[in-house]
């Protein structure tokens, strides 16, 4: 595993752990999601250097566009949650349990 591969894998894994084990706020989960997308953006950006060709160089922009849309959808849901539940604390998201 090359150092570059290790670094974006480690960044992604840290973001994933943060997203999986989010404890208090919904916003921290969204931030970890953004961190994961950022590590993937860096991976795709460095892929062009790995290929030593410009074949795949628009891929990071495509990923950035979609992850920006996703982040905005997440923030809209954060606002909607704050409006219906009063807060973004995750212990308030308990209406649907069995």
């Amino acid at each position: 595993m090359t150092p570059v591969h290790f670094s974006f894998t480690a960044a992604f894994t840290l973001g994933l752990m943060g997203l999986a084990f989010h404890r208090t706020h919904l916003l921290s989960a969204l931030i970890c999601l953004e961190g994961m997308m950022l590590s993937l953006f860096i991976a795709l950006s460095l892929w062009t250097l790995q290929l030593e060709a410009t074949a795949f160089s628009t891929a990071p922009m495509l990923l950035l566009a979609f992850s920006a849309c996703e982040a905005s959808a997440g923030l809209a849901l954060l606002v909607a949650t704050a409006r219906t539940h009063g807060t973004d604390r995750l212990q308030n998201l308990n209406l649907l349990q069995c």
Partner: protein
Amino acid sequence: MSPYVFTLLIFNLGLGTTMTFASSHWLLAWMGLEINTLAIIPLMTRQHHPRAVEATTKYFLTQATAAALILFASTSNAWLTGEWAINQMSHPLATSTIMLALALKLGLAPVHFWMPEVIQGLDLTTGLVLSTWQKLAPFALLLQVSSTVNPLILTLIGLLSTLIGGWGGLNQTQLRKILAYSSIAHLGWMVLIIQFSPPLATLSLLIYIIMTTSAFLTFKLTSSTTMNALATSWTKSPMMTSLATLILLSLAGLPPLTGFMPKWLILQELVKQDLPMLAFFAAMTALLSLYFYLRLCYTVALTSSPNTITMLTPWRLNPTQTSPLNPLTTMLTLALLPLTPAILALVIY
């Protein structure tokens, strides 16, 4: 919701699935999955009810995580082997991660925990779209990678899903949660067979979609979302209630109804592949789901509940929310089993 926005969202749902179907590059497949997720989020929050918003938030978090995992696994595979093609994924770390990510997308055990809560928070129509249309795109990706995934992972996920789908639905009275656990169980059956016969898994998915559509639409017709509401649904529409019994038994997989076809063919294929113990355990876990389907049949048609007289004689008005899909899917749910040889000839051989 404005009809223009609604049309745009439905169009994007179709676009996302079509993009994932048509793609051979992982980035395009990921983009199709993201479009699907983004398109269904506003559809889920059409009513700004706290339950709907909570379900949407949980759905968004799980689907976004799964999509990011898919892209991470394909990027790792590209760094390790240089391949971006979906059916050429070869590195074991990448294929295992992809399998877990697709399991999270589809709602398979052991990452199924979001599914009952999300479907519970939605109205029946959106729950139907979530259970049927949203399964198509990840399933297409699963079909393409299943030949290279570690078979032990596939078998474990499949068996665990059938077990948890049966076990988890036992203590439920809300119909949408029961249908969510039924989805988990049926997808478990599909994953069990996908490594041996992908056409059989596709046939199983198609039949599951038909059965679930008729179940959701029947519940929508009688506006029933709990078992108690089902108990008095015979007053609203006696015909649909008697058919609902048969639809539920078809979901359970009892002959001579259509639901028996996928289970029968899957068990036959497993035995042909010299795995009789796996077939035995899968059939035993189907008994668990049979229990809660049969309990629903009891409340629907086989027993009369002790309700008051006023609840038992409402005005039988013409139902306002009829769907043209309801008769078609109900008919297919009940009567497709004799066509099994023809379907086999068309699909498998």
